[in-house]
């Protein structure tokens, strides 16, 4: 265990990995630590979405547009492959009212550079022949991508190591040392002490606990979700397909269970089915009634899925911020403490641009998007009840 680094990144998930890569590329001496294995948190519990389609105009969409472009660059830049598929997204509506709302959203998104095509006149079923014929229509977003999240996280960390970074899994941070002026000077871990100039909290839903070690508060809450994995099938679903209600679910702050169907295929032939959202703390239970709702929603969209077997289901905790923007930047009070967390269900997609914004803050380089809306200060201080 090396005893010094410029930057200690706490969290070897997608956001921590991306930040480690960008910081190492910028010449910083970086050490990534994680209490578990790499990608063992929420990164390993999602679907690898890189979406521009599901975000209304605003800072998050700007970050997403930049981040999707950066993922395409990373495909050629990183040392190992990660199944990047520019498959595109298809958003469907069951009724005319929903379709009109989709069209209005697409018109707003267009001002941010997002391309969407109305395929309601029949092209929808050319794109996805197995979709229910009872749909009113839908939109095609060619800019949506998918990556394999574990492979992508590993590729980013390999890239970071190629620039001199160190990565230590199974290394839990136990304390953050601060000097007399309150500035961060070191972390103490289960594998030893690392003196450092800066600590980056990139621990997703577990970030508040890490921030607390440095005397800081951060309002990030776990928002539980499940994914069903079907048996391997012949090619059936060609894009990421979801129902229009998904956008409203993502943007809401409701604590109660919300589900809306999200269906996509994978290179291995399995079909992944989501998506549910609940604020239940870190409750690890997997209630069958929630899984049944996800299955029913998927079968309604794709009748050919009826009778297909589910091999397994898995569960993750999205890191949720009340205003639905991640925290990226310096801590409001603790000098040397930085945050890159709180991306809810968009962490995979937003990780590369998050890293650019974060490293711009660290080094003073220009940021690709305005960092002000992501300032951690808005999530700090006394927590809401």
């Amino acid at each position, binding site marked *: 265990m090396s005893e010094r680094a410029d930057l200690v990144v706490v969290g070897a998930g997608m956001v921590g990995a991306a930040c480690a890569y960008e910081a190492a590329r910028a010449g910083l001496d970086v050490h990534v630590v994680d209490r578990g294995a790499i990608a063992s948190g929420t990164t390993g519990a999602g679907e690898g979405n890189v979406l521009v389609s599901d975000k209304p105009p605003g800072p998050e969409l700007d970050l997403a547009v930049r981040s999707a472009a950066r993922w395409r660059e990373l495909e050629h830049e990183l040392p190992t492959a990660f199944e990047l598929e520019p498959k595109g997204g298809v958003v469907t509506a069951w009724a005319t009212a929903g379709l009109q709302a989709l069209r209005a959203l697409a018109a707003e998104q267009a001002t941010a550079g997002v391309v969407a095509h109305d395929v309601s006149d029949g092209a929808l079923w050319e794109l996805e022949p197995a979709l229910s014929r009872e749909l009113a229509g839908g939109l095609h977003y060619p800019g949506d991508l998918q990556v394999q999240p574990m492979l992508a996280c590993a590729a980013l960390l390999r890239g970071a190591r190629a620039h001199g970074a160190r990565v230590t899994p199974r290394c839990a941070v136990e304390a953050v040392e601060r000097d007399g002026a309150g500035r961060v000077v070191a972390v103490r871990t289960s594998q030893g002490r690392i003196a450092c100039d800066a600590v980056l909290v990139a621990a997703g839903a577990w970030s508040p606990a890490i921030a607390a070690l440095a005397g800081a508060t951060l309002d990030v809450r776990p928002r539980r979700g499940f994914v069903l994995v079907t*048996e*391997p*099938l*012949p090619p*059936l679903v060609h894009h990421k397909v979801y129902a229009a209600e998904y956008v409203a679910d993502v943007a809401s702050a409701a604590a109660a269970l919300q589900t809306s169907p999200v269906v996509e295929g994978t290179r*291995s*032939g399995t079909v992944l089915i989501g998506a549910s959202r609940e604020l239940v703390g870190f409750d690890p239970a997997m209630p069958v009634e929630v899984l049944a709702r996800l299955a029913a929603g998927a079968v309604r969209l794709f009748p*050919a899925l009826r*009778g*297909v*077997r589910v*091999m397994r289901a898995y569960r993750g905790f999205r890191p949720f911020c009340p205003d639905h923007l991640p925290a990226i930047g310096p801590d409001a009070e603790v000098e040397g403490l930085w945050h890159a967390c709180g991306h809810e269900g968009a962490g995979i997609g937003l990780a590369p641009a998050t890293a650019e914004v974060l490293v711009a803050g660290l080094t003073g380089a220009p940021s690709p998007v305005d960092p002000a809306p992501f300032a951690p200060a808005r999530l700090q201080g006394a927590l809401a009840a």
Partner: protein
Amino acid sequence: MSAPAGTRVAFTFEGEALEALAGQTVAAALLAAGHRTLRTTRVGDRPRGMFCGIGACWDCLVVHNGVPGVRACLQPVADGDRVERQGGAGPPR
């Protein structure tokens, strides 16, 4: 309906007439008859057979009486069963 223990059950694998003991799974009966390859992969046509043996890995998939994607390690052999290797992901379900 299961036959008394020790009874032999007749089935076919890829058209070959085989016997199983009553209660044996397809995978066990095929292994006893010297057949380890139960399917070929979707990519590369590589041979696959029983791996975990307990229904968790979904690797031992066969076409059982025309139904694809059946886990051979869980499926008891019934008299007259017709088992075939699954090529790739098999036909649409």
